[in-house]
């Protein structure tokens, strides 16, 4: 369960970071992998700071209503951004 939460949280952070790709005019090949690494680092930092993954795990197990809502929101946002990213072949995450 915790592993799932870590993956969901990290995907969410990376998705938000990838918006930089959409905004940035000058895109290079190394930008995406670097953003992924930064996303993982930020995700781990958020876990230490505010237990992001724990909240997601609490949401995934339906332990708490707030955590569940947060997790659904994170999943929905990540899904939308990922879908847009794939559908537009990397041009945009949010419309």
């Amino acid at each position, binding site marked *: *369960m*915790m592993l799932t939460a870590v993956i969901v949280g990290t995907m969410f*952070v990376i998705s*938000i970071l990838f*918006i930089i790709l*959409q*905004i940035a005019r000058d895109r290079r090949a190394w930008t995406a992998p670097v953003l992924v690494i930064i996303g993982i680092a930020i995700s781990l930092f*958020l*876990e*230490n*700071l*505010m*237990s992001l*993954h*724990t*909240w997601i*795990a*609490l*949401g995934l*197990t*339906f*332990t*708490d*209503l*707030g*955590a*569940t*809502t*947060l*997790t*659904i*929101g*994170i999943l*929905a*946002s990540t*899904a*939308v*951004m990922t879908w*847009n990213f794939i*559908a*537009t072949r990397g*041009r*945009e*995450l*949010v*419309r």
Partner: protein
Amino acid sequence: MKPERSKGAGLSILAILMTIGFTAAISMVDSAPKEITELRELPDGLFAYAIVHHGPHISVISDFPVDSAGVLIVDLSHISGTISQVLFMLAPSDRPLFAGASTVMISTPFNTFPTYVATPNDGIHAVMIHADMVTWDTMEFRISQIDQLLLLNLDIGEEFLILFCNPFAFGDVLEISMTIYDSTSYPIGSVIAFIVGSVLIISAALATDLIDIDRRRKRRRSL
């Protein structure tokens, strides 16, 4: 497909602001007071206190009135160890069972298996296992390793924590079950999470045009 920059920028800013706000808010929640959820008298005059709290370990340990006779404190960290830790205190009422044992803390950064095994002194062994990471076979294996067993089953919402502990004075197997719903222990964080989650859901719905505000406005104007 032409991107609609206004919506995109809105969602981006919203997501970033939500993340920053959530971080700040939850970090403040860590200082919220703990609460004693359940107190149950056990056989042999042993008392078990289950305390659900959130915040740094050190604040709880320093605040809690430690019995002069000596106590065994086992800190069961729920899931990752920061939010909703569960602290068990086993304090003998009539004899200094754990004299000199002072404080034993077991905490876990992640729910790996086995999470932690502590042998502080005098043959006290404690193993903490998250049940979702373990099968009955491994449980039986663990039980077979311990001749004198105190088995605590602790339900926290959907999570099932088990503590194997063998204080040397317990001849018989003692089984205690407690159910603690810890969602009430972090109401502020829960409310914040609910608000942030709701905003994210609405943002995602807006991004997929499930909620089309412009169309509704146009319809109103046309009417």
